[in-house]
């Protein structure tokens, strides 16, 4: 697993998704560049931490005879469901504000994609 490379790619993906979503919001039109400037490094760091946090339990789960594809098939469904529930909960606690939607959508799609990168890297 190339954690550093995946984390970097995820960070870039997160900032791209987040900034596209911000750009689409009328309320943030004047602040788009400022938000992009601020959010990009934050998202890269957050993604890095997120990748470490999600791969940490996998290190315990994986065993020698199981390859990446099997691990992905076995755990990705539960990971995706937990990630979705957490994102939905975040939208709920932010009282359905725009920021809650944008952050949750970014986090969910980045988390999904990062797992594909993580488990596709090694052959």
């Amino acid at each position, binding site marked *: 697993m190339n954690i550093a490379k995946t984390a970097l790619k995820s960070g870039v993906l997160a900032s791209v998704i987040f900034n*596209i*979503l911000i*750009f*689409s*919001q*009328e309320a943030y039109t004047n602040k788009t560049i400022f938000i992009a400037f601020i959010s990009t490094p934050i998202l890269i760091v957050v993604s890095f931490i997120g990748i470490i946090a999600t791969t940490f339990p996998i290190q315990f789960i994986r065993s020698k005879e199981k390859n990446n*594809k099997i691990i*992905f*098939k*076995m755990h*990705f*469904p*539960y990971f*995706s*469901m937990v990630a*979705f529930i957490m994102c939905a909960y975040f939208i709920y606690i932010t009282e359905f504000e725009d920021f809650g939607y944008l952050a949750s*959508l970014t986090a969910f799609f980045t988390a*999904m*994609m990062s*797992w*594909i990168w993580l*488990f*596709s890297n090694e052959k």
Partner: protein
Amino acid sequence: MKKIILIIASIAFSMLFYKNNFGLNIFIFSLITTGILAFLHPKKMKQKAVFINATIYITTAILVFFNHNTLSVFTNTVSFFLFIGSFSHNKSSIYVKFLNGFYTTIAAAFSNYFDKVNNEIEQVKKQDINYLHWLKIIGIPLLVVSVFIGLYRNANPVFDTIISKIDFSFINLQWLLFTALGYYFMYNISNPLEIEPLTKTDLKTDNQLKKTTILDQEKLKSENQLGLILMVLLNVLLLFLLLTDVFYVIKAKTLSAVELSIQVHQGINALIVSIILAIALIIYFFRGNLNFYKHNKFLKTTTFIWIALNSILVFVTIFKNYQYVHSFGLTYKRIGVFIYLLLTFTGLIFTFIKVKNIKNIIYLFRKNLEIAFGVLFISSFINWDVFITKYNVNYVKNNQLDIDYLLWLPNNSDILNKYNNENKITNYNSAKNKYNKHLSKLESNSWQEMNFENF
């Protein structure tokens, strides 16, 4: 072809849900999703389980249109996942169907993408997208239709007026992103997936408990003795509790409203927990080989007696809750207690069947979840806000009627206004204000948000 259908469906998704609340759009969406799945997977649609789930899903969507409350939306969401899950595998248990449906809806595209990336053979075979072909089949008809629209507008002033009224100003980046999200969902549900290890395990597991290794007679004897002593003691204790409860129920008629309220609040929660613990204890003792132990007859008999006594306890609790409702009226919490007790009672019945017919814990899990979904489905037929209002206004004494609670309920404006006009309730201004707000909200509904009250 599939892509074109999904693109049209995602545009419809956007038109139905973009900046709109729930209403008629849920019903139209249910027809679209059912139609797409029936078109893409015609063989699966003919299967009995899938057809039943589709019918339930569309029915719940109709209920959203009629009742327009959170419960019906929740039931519709659950039945949607079950419907999608039945496409994944129609013979799986209800909870597996739900998880398969949930997983498919949120992440099928990523799972498929992973398979695509990791399938080298497919990668070799992968062909480039023929952009020229797509340009032809979309661009040429679009161009020709535009030319003819221009011609007809000049030829016919009525046609020109209609065309000039078509407004595409709603299309912006946000709308396009929402449509992309719609495409993502549509793509997901059109490619039903299974959670592989879970579904396979579920299909392999039947409801019957099987003998595991060789029976350890000594261990079973000691467990049987422990269970027997425990069950006899618990039966005596429960019998004593029931006798005191009967005494309480007789005395309750003479209790004041406040005393009744305190006793019911304190009592019902404890009783519900004790019944759940009773089921858990039975499951523990009859989890394995004790079911096949030849001297377990007395243990089984005492267990059946305990189940019967617990069932009586359920009915006593129902009676207590009924007394409380009779004095103070209905609330969601009190209705919740009735439903909870009903589910507990069915849980006791299935526990009895489990012990009698030597079923496993999966059987209990499956049956109880099926019943729970059934109760959810049936209860979403009722507009509870209206039901509570009707009951409380007509059957609760005026000095006990909690009018603030009725005003707080969101979907009873019509009936409350009616009672207000008939002078059955006293808070005239608040009820009138609520009704007026409700009317203005109905008027402001877009066609997507319309519900039965709009008509």
